[in-house]
């Protein structure tokens, strides 16, 4: 399935997939390798990474494929170095990315803040694992706060994409590079250990790119022009505030133009389940079963976690419905759901953490408990 904005028409989606099937070869790949190949197809010039489970397949795949394509691969000495190598390559106008998992992404936060401040396009993949601390290497969605709240210091945002299948992970890569270039912003692809590890059939194809602005700010050597400076320091009184306003205006454009979500049978629903990423896959199964039992339940799946589909959820909350948020965490995205619902309807939560993954029937039970007997 490709990215769909508020898709409620299943027939259209099925038709779209059939066309793709005829035109493109479907191959079986694990998420980590598929995202790596998708990045190459999207024109990634340079990959920098440091080993960490459960995303090691990305680094290993890139170490082989990037040189084959005549592109750059460097295994860095740390995540600090990796994100700063991205910073350097991006500043020269190249498409650069890194990938890591939760503890490694914590180390990258300094660099992400600098990328945001210096307005450098970049793509960071986080194949989330359990935390806090060293946690474990099992799947988790515990980095939602870190990804959507900035994570590093200062007043900034990053675009955050939360794919829920290997195909969508693939589609997110080109979207991530395009969004990064269009808005000069770091884009985080927030996957998890399941998505990274599991194998699914995928279609790898180059999609038409957006019309992107020229990178006239890039450091290419000041041949026949004035020097370009890439900076995040604004010392002159009032200059940083002006810079903050400029970033805010851009963030508002992103919120206006780039929200992606999907919803299913919300119109007549008494219960709306909100989930993203791999949790949404489980929710999908549970909701289908609940419908078979006659429970009026639907789901909303944010695809962009920032910008969050606030309007879509708010609209659904205009009529009284119970919102059930399902996450592989102790409750993080629920904050955004509550902000969107804004007190109009109740918002309840069920989640598992530390590598616990709710079964379909577990979620189904939670849905049943919310029905009015």
């Amino acid at each position, binding site marked *: 399935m490709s990215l769909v904005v508020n898709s409620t028409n299943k027939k259209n989606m099925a038709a779209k997939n059939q066309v793709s099937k005829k035109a493109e070869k479907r191959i079986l790949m694990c998420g980590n390798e598929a995202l790596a190949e998708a990045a190459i197809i999207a024109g990634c010039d340079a990959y920098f990474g440091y080993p960490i489970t459960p995303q090691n397949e990305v680094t290993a795949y890139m170490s082989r494929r990037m040189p084959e394509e005549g592109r750059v691969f460097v295994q860095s*000495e740390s995540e600090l170095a990796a994100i700063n190598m991205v910073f350097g390559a991006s500043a020269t106008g190249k498409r650069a990315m890194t990938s890591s998992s939760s503890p490694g992404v914590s180390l990258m936060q300094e660099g992400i803040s600098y990328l945001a401040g210096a307005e450098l396009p970049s793509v960071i993949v986080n194949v989330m694992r359990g935390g806090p601390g060293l946690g474990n290497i099992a799947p988790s969605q515990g980095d939602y706060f870190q990804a959507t709240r900035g994570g590093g210091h200062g007043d900034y945002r990053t675009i955050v994409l939360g794919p829920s299948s290997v195909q969508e992970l693939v589609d997110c890569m080109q979207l991530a590079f395009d969004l990064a270039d269009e808005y000069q912003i770091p884009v985080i692809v927030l996957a998890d250990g399941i998505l990274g590890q599991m194998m699914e059939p995928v279609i790898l194809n180059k999609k038409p790119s957006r019309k992107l602005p020229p990178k006239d700010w890039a450091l290419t050597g000041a041949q026949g022009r004035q020097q370009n400076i890439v900076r995040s320091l604004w010392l002159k009184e009032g200059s940083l505030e002006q810079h903050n306003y400029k970033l805010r205006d851009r963030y508002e454009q992103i919120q206006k133009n780039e929200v992606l979500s999907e919803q299913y049978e919300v119109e007549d629903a008494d219960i709306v389940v909100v989930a993203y990423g791999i949790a949404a896959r489980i929710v999908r199964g549970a909701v289908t079963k609940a419908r078979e039992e006659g429970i009026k339940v639907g789901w909303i799946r944010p695809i962009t976690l920032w910008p969050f589909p606030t309007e879509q959820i708010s609209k659904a909350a205009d009529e009284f419905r119970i919102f059930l948020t399902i996450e592989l965490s102790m409750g993080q995205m629920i904050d955004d759901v509550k902000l969107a619902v804004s007190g109009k309807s109740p918002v309840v939560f069920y989640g598992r953490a530390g590598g616990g993954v709710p079964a379909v029937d577990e979620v189904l039970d939670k849905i049943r408990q919310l029905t009015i007997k």
Partner: protein
Amino acid sequence: MKTVFKRTPTLKDCPTHYCPGCGHGIAHRLIAEVIDELDIRGRTIGIAPVGCAVLEYDYIDVDMIEVAHGRAPAVATGMKRTNPDKIIFSYQGDGDLASIGAGEILHAGHRGEQITVIFINNAVYGMTGGQMAPTTMINQVTATTPKGRSAAAQGYPLQVSELLVTLPGTIYVERCALSSSTAVRNAKKAIKHAFELQLDGAEGMSLVEVLSPCPTYWRMSPADAMEWIEKEMTKVFPLGRLKG
């Protein structure tokens, strides 16, 4: 009248923010002169550190980036690997390179990145108010060693150049000083050589350490600071070509 000295074009004509007697201005001029002499302004990208020289791009008129504290060698790696035809140099102080960025400089050298590093050693953190640096001398009084640095409590001055020499990935390491006109001429020769190696595609990192005065936080007159480099600093940080 014959012109015996003039500002080189790549050095901007502007007032300086550096303290009287500071070495950064001299070091900036040497780099600008080398860039002009080698005619590489149009293909050079410079990396400014966190520290007093963070505004280096206000003085040196090439494409420049300002990076997180200590991370310049990683940024330089990202630039050079994706732009092998460009000349990439970083300009880093002792806090930046020898303390918070010790990992990055070690590994950039270890990988043999084809970059040029100008390492300004003034034995103190300047911008933050004169705290102890890894290169602070024994008995040197700083904001954080009020009784002077003691080896027992704070360790010995870190000789980064000597460490980097041990790496196969470094091809040229030289330590110079800005303490006299002769020393400044030698420093320029070293900086030029480091850039030339990169221009020639020599396989490895080149680093020039520059002993530079900080009269403000050494609490000395500019003249005494120059003398202190020659009499004291060079005992721990001997001048000369260490490698290459």
